[in-house]
C-alpha cells in the first residue's frame, strides 16, 4: 500500500519545535557516560557489526570494492572471531562487483546509494530507474537522498511522493532515506524531515551523505531518534537509524550507542535497526578491540587502508 500525502499531516510535522537547550543537556549527559571493560568490549564488537563499510568516491575501482568486501567479511585477518560488518555501501554501478565478491550466501549485505546521490537533483523517472537497476544488480538496501531543494522550499509533497515512489521501486530491499541534515539548517527542519521520511515509507532514516559537513552530529542524531521513538509509540512500527559521516573514532560510536539505548531501548541495539555509515571508524574499533587483549594501542599503520 502506497502511503498518501496529507497536507494536514505535513503541517503537523512542520510544527514540531526542538528545544536546543534540552537537546544539548541530554547529549552532554550521554557523552559523560563512562563505559569500561566488558561493557566496552561488547559495545565495540556491536559497533563493528553495525558498520555499513562505505566507499563513495569518484575514484572507486572494482578492486577497491573487492578489498572493501574482504574487509567487511573479515575486518581483521588475524582475528577471525571479530564480527563482520553489517553491509558494504557502494555506488549502483559497483553493486555487481560487490555481489560477486561477497558470493550468493553472503552474510554481509549490499547497500547501494541511489536517486542521484549525493545531490538528488535528477528527474524522478531516473531516480526510479537507478533504484530498480541497483536492486536488480543485487542490492539488499537502498540509500536514497531526499530532494533538499524541494524540502527547503516547502514542497513536502514532492519529497514525500519521491520517497514513496522509490520505496515502491525497492521491492524487498530496505530503504534508507538520507536527509542530509547538514543542508537542512535547523533542528526543527531535521525533525520535520524525519517525520516526513518515516511516513513516506522509510525503513531507515539516515543523517548524511558524508559529502557535506557537519554530518552526523549528536543533536541531529538525537532529534532523529526522537522522531523514531514518537512513531514507534504511535504505531508500534520500528524504524532504523543510520548516522553517517564524521563518526571516526570508537569513543563517539560508543556515545551514539548510549544515545540509542537511552532513547529507543535495547531493541534497536542490533545491526537490523542501527547502522553506522563509516569507513575509518572500523579501524579505530579494531584498534580499541586489539588493545583490550594486547594491553597497548597498535599503530594505525597496522590496519588496512580502505
Amino acid at each position, binding site marked *: 500500500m502506497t502511503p498518501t500525502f496529507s497536507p494536514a499531516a505535513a503541517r503537523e510535522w512542520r510544527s514540531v519545535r526542538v528545544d536546543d537547550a534540552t537537546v544539548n543537556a541530554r547529549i552532554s549527559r550521554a557523552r559523560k557516560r563512562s563505559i569500561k571493560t566488558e561493557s566496552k568490549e561488547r559495545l565495540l564488537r556491536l559497533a563493528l557489526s553495525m558498520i555499513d563499510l562505505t566507499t563513495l568516491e569518484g575514484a572507486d575501482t572494482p578492486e577497491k570494492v573487492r578489498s572493501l568486501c574482504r574487509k567487511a567479511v573479515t575486518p581483521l585477518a588475524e582475528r577471525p572471531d571479530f564480527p563482520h560488518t553489517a553491509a558494504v555501501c557502494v555506488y549502483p554501478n559497483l553493486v555487481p562487483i560487490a555481489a560477486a565478491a561477497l558470493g550468493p550466501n553472503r552474510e554481509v549485505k549490499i547497500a547501494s546509494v541511489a536517486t542521484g546521490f549525493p545531490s538528488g537533483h535528477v528527474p524522478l523517472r531516473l531516480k526510479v530507474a537507478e533504484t530498480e537497476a541497483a536492486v536488480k544488480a543485487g542490492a539488499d538496501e537502498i540509500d536514497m537522498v531526499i530532494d533538499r531543494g524541494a524540502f527547503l522550499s516547502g514542497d513536502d509533497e514532492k519529497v514525500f511522493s519521491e520517497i514513496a515512489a522509490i520505496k515502491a521501486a525497492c521491492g524487498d530491499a530496505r530503504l534508507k532515506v538520507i536527509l542530509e541534515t547538514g543542508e537542512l539548517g535547523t533542528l526543527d527542519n531535521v525533525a520535520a524531515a524525519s517525520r516526513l521520511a518515516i511516513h513516506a515509507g522509510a525503513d531507515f532514516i539516515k543523517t548524511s551523505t558524508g559529502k557535506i559537513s557537519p554530518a552526523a552530529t549528536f543533536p541531529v542524531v538525537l532529534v532523529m531518534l526522537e522522531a523514531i521513538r514518537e512513531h514507534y509509540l504511535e504505531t508500534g512500527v520500528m524504524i532504523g537509524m543510520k548516522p553517517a559521516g564524521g563518526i571516526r573514532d570508537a569513543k563517539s560510536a560508543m556515545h551514539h550507542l548510549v544515545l540509542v539505548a537511552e532513547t529507543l531501548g535495547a531493541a534497536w541495539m542490533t545491526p537490523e535497526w542501527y547502522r553506522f555509515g563509516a569507513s575509518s571508524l572500523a579501524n579505530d574499533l579494531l584498534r580499541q578491540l586489539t588493545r583490550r587483549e594486547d*594491553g597497548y*594501542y597498535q599503530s594505525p599503520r597496522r590496519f588496512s587502508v580502505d
Partner: protein
Amino acid sequence: MRTTVEKTLKMYVGGKFIRSESGRVLPATSAKGRPMNVAAASRKDLRDAIQIARGAQKSWAGRSAYNRGQIFYRLAEILEDRVDAMPTSGADVLAATDRAVHFAGWTDKITALLSSLNPVAHTYVNYSMIGPMGVVFAAPDPADGLTGMVEAMLGALLMGNSVVLMVPTASAELAVALSEALAVSDFPGGCINVLTGDVDSVVKVAIRHDDLDALYLLGDAVSADLLEEIGTENARVMRRLVLAPRSARPAPPSRLAKLAEVKTVWMSSALMSGGGAAY
C-alpha cells in the same frame, strides 16, 4: 601590595597550551623561588601527543629545507630577544640561540651530506637517500637547561621528524618559556609538542606505544635502571633507540643519521649505457 597571578604551567601540544587530561599537577618551584603547579603528563596525554605528532609529521617533512631553516632561525631570533625574560641563565639562552642557528644552517645540507651514490658491480645505479623516521620521543638531560631542550628537539626536527619533547617537572617553567617561543616561531602545530611531568613514568608508557618510531635520550634523561628496560623493550619491537651524551656540543652528522631512515634505490642503468645511438 598586589596579589600575583598564580598559574598552572601548561604543556604545549598540537600548537595549543593544554592542561593534563588527567587534571593532575605536580608541585615545583619557580626560578624566583615561588611555589607553582606543573601539569603532569598522563599516559593519555602521551598517546594524544603522539597521535597529533603523527598527523603533523608529513607536512613538516614536506616543507622545503629552506623553509624549515627559516623557522629554526626564527626561533633563534625570539630566544635571543627574550634572553632576560627566560627563567635560566643568559649564557644558557644564548647557547640555545646559537644551537638553533647551527641547526638552521644544517637543514638544506644534511641530506646531501648523508645521502650517497653507491658503487655496484653491475648495470645499476644505486643510491641511498635519507628521510624522516616519523615520530620521535626526545628527552634532554635535566641539567642541560634550555640548550638541552633545543638540542634534543631540533636534532630530530631537522631530519623531518615530528617530536614529543619530555621535560621533567623541575624544568617545567623553562619548558613553558620555550613553548611560548615555539608558539610564535611559525612551527606548524603538532610537529613539536612539549610534555612536562615525571619523565621515567612517561617513558615507561612510551616504550610500549606502537606508533612511536624512535626514542632520543640525551645524557641522564632517564634513570639507569629504566635505561635497561628501555633497551630490552626496544630490541623486542625493533624500535630505534638513540642514546647521546649531554648537550655541550651539537649533534654531529653521525648522530643525526641515526634520527633518519635510509632508503636505497636500485635503478637499471642498461638504458643509459645501452643507447649507443646517442653518442
